[in-house]
Every structure is written in structure tokens, then in C-alpha cells.
């Protein structure tokens, strides 16, 4: 079998940077939220891959298996995923209301509207 080394970290870093880039570079709020999700997923990947023990199996007690993967990071990520869902839901709710209030979800347009408001 080919030795892949610590490739999982590269995946994590790639996802993380992608997410961060989207959050920073995109003006569309929905896209920002997607970026945020990718960012969160990268950390989830990080935890999950961290729990893997080489040759280990799912941590359910059964005859014939000696090595189990560490279940704790997975359990932690269950919580983190819920947090992520809650964040996304709240963010989307806010975006919907922003769309109703401003008529747009583009950040630069919103900023334009706000600065006009300040000027008047």
C-alpha cells in the first residue's frame, strides 16, 4: 500500500484556506456563509482524521477486534456539527431578513445604502 503520509492535514489546510478565502473575498452573504461552512468542515475533518488509529475499526465492542479508532473526537464533532447547523440556520435567517430590509444581499450594495443613510 502506498504510504500517503500525513495527507489528511493537507486536506484540512486546503479546505480551511478555501473557506477563509470565500468568507473574505465574496461579497454575497450566502456565499460567505458557504465559506464559513467549508471553514468549519475543515476543522471537523481535522478532528475526525485525528481519531483514526491505523488498522483500527469502529469502536463497537465485538469479538475478534483488538484495535479500535478513538471515538472521542467523533463525539466531539457531533456537537460541533450541531453548532455549525445552528450557526448556519441563524445566519440564513439573518440573510433572509437583510434581503427583506435592504432588498439585496450583496455586501457592497448594503454598504452603499448604509453610507447614503449616514450622509442624509
Amino acid at each position, binding site marked *: 500500500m502506498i504510504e500517503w503520509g500525513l495527507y489528511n492535514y493537507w486536506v484540512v489546510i486546503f479546505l480551511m484556506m478555501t473557506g477563509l478565502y470565500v468568507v473574505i473575498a465574496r461579497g454575497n452573504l450566502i456565499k460567505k456563509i458557504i465559506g464559513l461552512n467549508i471553514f468549519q468542515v475543515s476543522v471537523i475533518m481535522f478532528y475526525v482524521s485525528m481519531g483514526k488509529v491505523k488498522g483500527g475499526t469502529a469502536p*463497537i465492542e465485538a469479538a475478534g477486534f483488538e484495535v479500535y479508532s478513538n471515538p472521542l473526537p467523533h463525539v466531539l464533532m*457531533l456537537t460541533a456539527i*450541531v453548532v455549525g447547523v445552528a450557526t448556519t*440556520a441563524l445566519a*440564513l*435567517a439573518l440573510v*433572509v431578513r437583510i434581503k*427583506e430590509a435592504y432588498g439585496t444581499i450583496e455586501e457592497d450594495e448594503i454598504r452603499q445604502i448604509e453610507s447614503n443613510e449616514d450622509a442624509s
Partner: protein
Amino acid sequence: MISHHIPRVLSKLLIPLIMLFALYVQFHGDYGPGGGFQAGVIFGAGIILYALLFGLDQAKEVFRPRALEFFMAAGVLLYGGVGIAAIFAGGNFLAYSALAHDPTHGQHLGILLVELGVGTTVAAVMATIFFQFAGRGRTDD
């Protein structure tokens, strides 16, 4: 989707099964893979599927938002209530062993109730989130 007969018929068959499966996952969860989160999401998915196919209004008839809100709160109350009950039974917070005379029995009972609480809340929350988004900009409640 009212006019699409095939999905409607199929889903009529599927939705009860989905919900049944959710209950299976729910009650299997205390000593096997599964649990309240998964069950709640599956159950919520059933509700959402129903709403997709039969329309939001009809779905709201079946699952009233007020009721969902109640279940949302009740699930958490159940969870926390078990924890508090453990305190009054003489143990620490959420120490299920104290819930019954036999610690193993207590653990079973505790996890069962807690997972039920989680499942209820998650299902209600999923449905509520969907209703909120889907209902936006329509009748505006």
C-alpha cells in the same frame, strides 16, 4: 408538487416508514449505534418531505408551529429534568445511576429519557427551521 402523482403516492408510503425508522434509531440508541440526534433529524426529514409534497399550509395543519415550539422546549426540559431528578435522587447532575435502585437499570432509564428529549427537540427544531424559511415572504406570519 400537488400535481405530481408518483412522488405523492410514493411518499405516502415512505413517510410512515421514515418515521418508524426514526423511532427505531431513537430507541436503539441506548445500547447500539443511533440516538436522539439522528432520530430527530430523520423524523424532521419526514416532516419536511411531507411539507414539500403536500404544501406548507397542509403541513402546518398537521404539525402546528405552536406545537413544534412546545416540543422544542419540552425536549430540553425533559433532558434537564432527568439531570435535576438525578440530583434529587441523591446523585450528581445527570448521574443516571442514581435514578433507579440498580445502577445499570438507572443508566438505561436515564439515557433513554435523555435521548428522547434530544430527539424531540431536534425533530421540532428541524421542522421549525424549515417552516420558518419556507414560510418567509408568503403569508408572513
